């Protein structure tokens, strides 16, 4: 038998903890143990990018991490990519404005990835926007509207409302 482990994380600014087996993936920890079902689980082996979350500010695949291994870390999920008052954050609003999603399954991974990307590169070109999302799969949109959403999100972050 595997002994359990107490795992404590700061998730979207709130301290959370649960007692889990060592093999609990961070993706399942967020969804099953903390009830944060915004993080979606697609391929479960690191290819699709749907489960991407930010660990200490950097995007990582939550299906390729054991929760116990990031004990003490600060995690941001798609639920944390909103404004402090709960309204849509700039990336979320941009997906709305530019029709960046259809079924929406992949969207949480895109929102977290793009949120971190724009922190580092606030003013990407279209080519850079395409490169930024290259690690995330979407089967609906054909990506064009997601690229438009990256550029829109950059505008929104700069306060451009047009």
């Amino acid at each position, binding site marked *: 038998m595997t*002994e359990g482990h107490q795992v404590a994380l700061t998730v979207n600014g709130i301290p959370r903890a649960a007692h889990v087996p060592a*093999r609990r993936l961070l993706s399942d920890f967020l969804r099953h143990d903390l009830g944060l079902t915004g993080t979606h689980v697609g391929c479960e082996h*690191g290819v699709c990018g749907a489960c991407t979350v930010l660990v200490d500010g950097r995007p990582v695949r939550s299906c*390729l*991490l*054991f929760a116990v291994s990031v004990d003490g870390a600060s995690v941001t999920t798609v639920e944390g990519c909103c404004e402090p008052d709960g309204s849509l954050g700039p990336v979320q609003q941009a997906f709305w404005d530019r029709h960046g999603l259809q079924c929406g399954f992949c969207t949480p991974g895109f929102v977290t*990835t793009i949120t971190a990307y724009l922190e580092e590169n606030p003013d990407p070109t279209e080519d850079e926007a395409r490169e930024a999302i*290259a*690690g995330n799969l979407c089967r609906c949109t054909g990506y064009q509207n997601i690229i438009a959403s990256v550029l829109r999100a950059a505008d929104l972050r700069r306060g451009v409302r047009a």
Partner: protein
Amino acid sequence: MRLVKPSPFVYHRPTTLDQVLEILAEVGADGKVLAGGQSLIPLMSMRLAAPAHLVDINHVDGLDRVETERDGVRVGATARHAAVERNPAAFASVPLLRQALVHVAHPTIRNRGTTVGSLAHADPSGEMTAVLALLGGTVTLAGRGSERTVGAADFFQGPLESAVRPDEVAVEAFFPAPEGRTGSAWAEVSRRHGDYAVCGVGALVTLDDDLRVTASVVGLISVGPTPVVVDVSDALAGQPHDTADVVAAGALVRAAVDPEPDIHATAEYRRHLAGALTERALRDAARAAGASVDGGDA
């Protein structure tokens, strides 16, 4: 819970290298070192690997260093690919590191995956295996009361098989800076951006003061059980850097490799790519060497 999950294991979180080595000595072949986990965890989720003990080295202090010395770059066991890729001093000393790292999976994977871990994993389609082999680098392996440094040629023993013994941990890799007026480049073809390479080629080209080639060597991935290094100096030596006969070098490489077919590519197509990418990488490396002003590592 669905079955596509890792088997149960005992989790160890040592905070010193001595503790790591104690645990590994105790659990023997039942143990596996967890660094970035970007290859190991999917293998465990697919139940292709089921270690009984996982020894997490991410909480050991001092293993995440990226240090550039006069003669090359030292990378610690938990240094992420992204940290190596973005390190300006490492890029200045060994440009091939960044040139190849940008082809390693996606940025999100490189944020967690480690360079030393990818060497220890010894996947012959892993870019860093060929980078180490091409540069003539080494890996330092620590065991309880022992430490040894293994050259790339002896380190990679077969597909997913490295010289790391069950009671050892790879603590550091050393990537030597190329000597003289040397340029480098990486060229790769994958089915989709960020996927495993169907074939990838790194090249080093060294020039003399008249910008003529004195030495040239390439390192290839995905064309053999381990990274393949081919010295193509005979095809290029003495030729001006901008008109050197890279096509002849490509022919040498096509004759030297013996790739396997798989679902993604026939052996013949892989051999073709090995030649074509060799030409491309050599041309780029020669251009980089020609453009370097200070003559290399001065």
